[in-house]
């Protein structure tokens, strides 16, 4: 895409820095919100295991075998994703960016443009990777979900969840994110613990989180690794509004500690992480069983730029990375809205 620019011919001073758009940072990578499987070039097997043990009455005789190990393999097969756009610096020649162009008509390279505009590509790509990781749906999985028969109870997907899945734009690179993997696990409906949802507002968010909390397997809270609630960004504001309700309706249901980047919000001791999870869903799971598989996490936040051809001024910007989401121990996860 060429540069979209509404320039004013430079007549004097120009304010620096350039004001950037607001966007979400990739907290998933920065804070390590899940388990990162780096150096995954292609297919990689991830295995989960459990052991069923059954105590029987001692007889002194030869006993029948009861129980045994239960293993499950899943394959992480990262999709390769590329971003590319082209542009000509010539579009900047009349603008503020001409101030640092070297003398000579051939020289139209602006370092201010490079450092303050092009550099934005890296975090924006990173943000998009995060969106794909949590909310990506491949067209194939959307079709599979559409074929499920809806229901209200455990073992069925709600009609609302089906409608939501059908409504998302299919990922162009065919990435299935965490929600997609949880709703549809390889060949069938996921084994998630289902909590039916409603439209979450500041007035009901505490009650809805109580339902989610109550559905978590009790033994999860006795384990070394506590589960985390992965919630949509919008819930943060609703939680804070609910906590700060004035008058008799005020109930401090959520614990908020710290501020800014150090802020931690929790419900009954369970940390809530706000990620680009689609509105209407909340997922509770141990971070270590959610895999972000990629060749290198550094790929996501880097890009390459240069001239397309030596005999033209067309420049390119490219980012290439690989990504797959894999969710293990699915029967332990609680999905609100599923």
């Amino acid at each position, binding site marked *: 895409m060429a540069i979209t620019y509404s320039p004013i011919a430079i007549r004097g001073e120009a304010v620096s820095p350039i004001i950037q758009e607001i966007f979400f940072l990739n907290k998933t990578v920065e804070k390590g919100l899940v388990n990162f499987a780096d150096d995954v070039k292609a297919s990689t097997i991830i295995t989960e295991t459990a052991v069923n043990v059954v105590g029987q009455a001692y007889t002194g005789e030869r006993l029948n075998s009861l129980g045994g190990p239960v293993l499950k393999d899943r394959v992480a097969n990262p999709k390769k994703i590329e971003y590319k756009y082209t542009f000509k610096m010539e579009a900047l020649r009349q603008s503020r960016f001409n101030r640092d162009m070297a003398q000579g008509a051939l020289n139209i390279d602006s370092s201010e443009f490079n450092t303050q505009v092009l550099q934005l590509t890296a975090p924006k790509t990173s943000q998009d990777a995060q969106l794909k990781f949590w909310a990506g749906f491949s067209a194939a999985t959307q079709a599979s979900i559409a074929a499920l028969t809806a229901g*209200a109870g455990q073992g069925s997907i709600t009609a*609302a969840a089906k409608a939501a899945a059908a409504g998302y734009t299919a990922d162009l690179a065919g990435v299935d994110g965490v929600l997609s993997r949880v709703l549809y696990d390889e060949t069938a409906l996921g084994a998630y613990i289902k909590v039916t949802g409603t439209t979450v507002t500041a007035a009901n968010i505490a009650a809805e989180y109580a339902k989610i909390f109550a559905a978590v397997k009790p033994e999860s809270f006795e384990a070394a690794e506590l589960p985390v609630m992965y919630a949509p960004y919008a819930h943060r504001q609703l939680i804070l509004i609910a906590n700060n309700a004035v008058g008799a309706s005020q109930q401090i249901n959520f614990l908020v500690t710290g501020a800014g980047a150090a802020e931690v919000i929790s419900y009954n001791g369970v940390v809530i992480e706000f990620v680009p999870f689609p509105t209407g869903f909340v997922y509770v799971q141990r971070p270590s069983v959610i895999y972000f598989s990629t060749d290198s996490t550094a790929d996501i936040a880097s890009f390459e730029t240069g001239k397309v051809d030596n005999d033209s001024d067309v420049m390119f910007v490219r980012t290439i990375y690989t990504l797959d989401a894999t969710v293990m121990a699915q029967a332990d996860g609680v999905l609100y809205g599923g």
Partner: protein
Amino acid sequence: MATQKKVDTEESKIILNAFDDNVNYKMFLESLPEGTDVELHIIENYTEEQADFLINDLKIYNNQ
């Protein structure tokens, strides 16, 4: 609330609880006697919260 309820019809059908495990809407709706006002049945047999969810989700289901 009981999970199943016998209804006196010619065939004495068992009405399924829509919230029971592995009961989907197709099975639930087929278990209702012919001519049942579905919304009224839900309001009379489920908690207010369950009824609100079920009526809304069935509307979406019927449009799919």
